[in-house]
């Protein structure tokens, strides 16, 4: 780390601890001062490889090896275009071949092998797969999704724990305050000598302390099983108890009319009663309604009311 320094002005990290090294697309380093000096006009050539550079493209060097900075930069750019996911391929083999191809492109670009041709390939790919690229831009890979999920869970857990401890502390603080207030009140009003009251208070405080200690010690048992079923909710696996009952038996109702007998259900149509009721629509029939039923019911009502006054 000590020999990291600017190749132009030869300043090192050791001599100037606040030295800031910058790197541009070509992967060569310069310190911040040199960048400011050389690129006053906003653009210029690299000191080491004569590549035309822009000042705005200079970034802080993250890694010790500037080549890695360059590679990561290129990789990010390439991955923006080559963003197919594993489910875009029919087999794992194809996906792996694709990954290797991507790797090849990055390798070529970083090590300046066939740059022109590689760029052409990239452009061609971009043209051919425009819609896929657009579609995948917003999607994360499955693995990243998993990671995000785990992170979220972790965050929630820590947050919850923090809240719990906070609440716990507050509760304890309140209890202590209350205890103190109680002592003051008692001293004000009680007839007992102050020494006894103080002793009582001391006792109570000690009790409180042990209680708090105990609470701190006690472990919160987990509230849910790994299956997601909350603990304590008894999920009985025993079969439901069967109640022995006498089976229901249908018995036709017998309507006493004290007069002429009711026409039978089957005869209603033939006797012409049905002409006076609404015919059932297909929807009604589907629901189990028939015209006979309603007609029969109405007749029952009418007949049973005929001769009641005579009885």
């Amino acid at each position: 780390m000590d020999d990291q320094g600017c190749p132009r002005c030869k300043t090192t990290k050791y001599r100037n601890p606040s030295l800031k090294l910058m790197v541009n697309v070509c992967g060569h380093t310069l310190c911040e001062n040199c960048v400011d000096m050389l690129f006053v006009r906003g653009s210029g050539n690299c000191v080491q490889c004569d590549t035309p550079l822009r000042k705005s493209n200079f970034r802080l060097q993250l890694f010790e090896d500037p080549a890695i900075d360059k590679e990561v930069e290129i990789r990010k750019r390439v991955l923006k275009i080559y963003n197919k996911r594993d489910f875009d391929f029919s087999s794992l083999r194809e996906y792996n071949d694709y990954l290797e191809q991507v790797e090849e492109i990055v390798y070529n670009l970083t090590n300046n092998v066939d740059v022109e041709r590689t760029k052409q390939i990239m452009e061609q790919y971009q043209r051919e797969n425009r819609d896929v690229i657009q579609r995948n831009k917003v999607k994360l890979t499955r693995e990243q999704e998993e990671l995000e999920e785990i992170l979220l869970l972790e965050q929630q857990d820590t947050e919850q724990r923090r809240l719990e401890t906070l609440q716990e502390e507050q509760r304890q603080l309140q209890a202590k305050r209350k205890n103190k207030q109680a002592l003051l009140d008692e001293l004000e009003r009680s007839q007992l000598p102050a020494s006894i009251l103080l002793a009582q208070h001391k006792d109570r405080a000690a009790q409180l302390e042990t209680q708090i200690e105990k609470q701190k010690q006690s472990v919160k048992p987990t509230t849910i099983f790994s299956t997601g079923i909350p603990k304590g909710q008894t999920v009985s696996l025993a079969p439901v108890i069967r109640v022995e009952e006498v089976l229901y038996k249908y018995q036709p109702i017998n309507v006493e009319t004290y007069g002429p007998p009711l026409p039978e259900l089957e005869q209603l149509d033939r006797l012409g009663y049905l002409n006076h009721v609404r015919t059932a629509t297909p929807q009604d029939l589907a629901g189990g309604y028939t015209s006979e039923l309603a007609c029969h019911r109405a007749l029952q009502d009418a007949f049973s009311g005929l001769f009641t006054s005579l009885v």
Partner: protein
Amino acid sequence: MLELKRTLDAKGHGVLEMPSGTGKTISLLSLIVAYQKAYPLEVTKLIYCSRTVPEIEKVVEELRKLMEFYTKETGEKNNFLALALSSRKNLCIHPEVSSLRFGKEVDGKCHSLTASYIRAQHHSNPSQPVCRFYEEFDAVGRQVPIPSGIYNLDDLKDFGRKKGWCPYYLARYSILHANIVVYSYHYLLDPKIADLVSKELAKKSVVVFDEAHNIDNVCIDSMSVNITRRTLDRCQTNVDTLQNTIQRIKETDAAKLREEYRRLVEGLKEANVARETDIYLSNPVLPDEVLQEAIPGSIRTAEHFVGFLKRFLEYLKARLRIHHVVQESSPQFLKDIYEKVCIDRKPLRFCAERLRSLLRTLEIADIADFSPITLISHFATLVSTYSKGFTIIIEPFEDKTPTIANPVLHFSCMDPSIAIKPVFERFQSVVITSGTLSPLDIYPRILDFRPVTMASFTMTLARTCLCPLIVGRGNDQVAMSSKFETREDFAVIRNYGNLLLEMSAIVPDGIVAFFTSYVYMENIVASWYEQGILENIQRNKLIFIETPDAAETSMALEKYQEACENGRGAILLSVARGKVSEGIDFVHHFGRAVIMFGVPYVYTQSRILKARLEYLRDQFQIRENDFLTFDAMRHAAQCVGRAIRGKTDYGLMIFADKRYARADKRGKLPRWIQEHISDGSLNLTIDETVQLSKHFLRQMAQPFRRVRPAPFFTRFS
């Protein structure tokens, strides 16, 4: 015995705590061997894992005794094959290679003599040196299996010399059909090594982890990666070498690279088939997905992969150039890496596998040189595979030296179950055992498995040969404690000094004293010197001190033993969690008293520990304090357990901190120590301690004849 048999019958896992020095090893061995003999189809292999080479040797010796007993009793020669396996450094018999001092050098040199292409070159060009032992083994060694018997490391070497075969490769080949294999934890737990050595072991094996009280730390260490600036610099040279080699090969032998490329396009199908048919132990570094898919296209060719590594490396370098501490999770890291250098998660996941393939293709002889880049690739694979259970902490400097920039990236595993999971899944029974596993229920929780048996045993003693005492106060009634507020207190330090002084006057032979950390020990010893306590102690005994340097420590230890041998008596001041506290036994007169100054808590301000504690709380519902106390107590128990190594042995165990008297600490000591702590031995003053110790030592010094031959456990309900 009963519990172990039950475990084997159920084909499940077990956790057994047995006091040290009571024949734990032999009991385990004898039952499992008997089981193997009775049901040869149910249990085909015993894999016995221990920690250090001396321990491995001890196990093999026990096994030899057992087998001799079998032959004597049954009268027939049994055809058991048992062998120990260790690194090349301990097994090599090549005159040049074995003279090298470091394990890594030996591995590298061996590799440069035995790699397949070196041997191929040797065919065309006989002046190319190869290892004749390996050649011989490769030519004939595999045809005839090694004759049955018990082989320790030296036996293997002798056998190798006699036949002219390489003992290391012979052992590695023979473990496939051996009945009993004894080796180190790492051969099973460290995914990098397990993949080479243990992946083809039979499913119907019984695995025993002995001295397993630290198993969670071993698991965590094997999955964690620490990256410093220096690692990255060495990686940079690695990458440059790779690039040059690729360039050279491209000019001379482009067909080779094309061949590799073709293979990668086809995918890693072979390994996948093997795993599906259940031949291999699965490797947590090699995720399933890697096996099912082909290497992604972006790192398929060698140049692209090197470019990928370069980008990854530069990214890590940029990350290490920070001035404040960063802690983030794996997903956050992955997101950032995508934004900064456009590296996707998928190629990262394949990184370790791809690098291995490349190194193989490039025929690089000295693999040892490439350890940094291999480390980085493991890190890449792990970070992209596991989104939970790991944390990334980047520290710009160490806590002790906040002015010196020494950036470290800790990728630390917080979940020991990840590394040990394949072992539990693959083998039918896994037995975890140690002298100090209390409290038992915490191990299944942090290792995430369901044991069928958990038991703690205690000793049946002919006499109470251990005497745990908890000293809480000095003679001036000031409480003794190593807790942060009082550790600088003069009174506490003086009382600790007085305790050691008094004990040095009454205890015969050796005393071992443990402190909580090196820093604390230095402080205390300095202030004892100022107060003149050290001088007084030296009138009674010599003093030796453990240091972080291994050579110095072993020197001190040697002299300490010498001083004990010739009757002068000595005191060894050492540190809990240090070398002395873990592997070294103080039998008989080497350790008549162990004093534990303070409770050996870990350094709680470390960020890695904090992250781990948080994880334990959230995932396993283990409270921070519980875990810290558990960890401190297991180390304390491990320290004091050094003194008792058998029934005839006896020793004082002095816990010098008033916090040991509390129920939560005391309850976490192993059963066999807890049993002997009566209410009368709690919170003593120094005077009382001296009284009790005198009594105990006088009693123990009487001649002891009743030695039962066989080890025997009773169940503690």
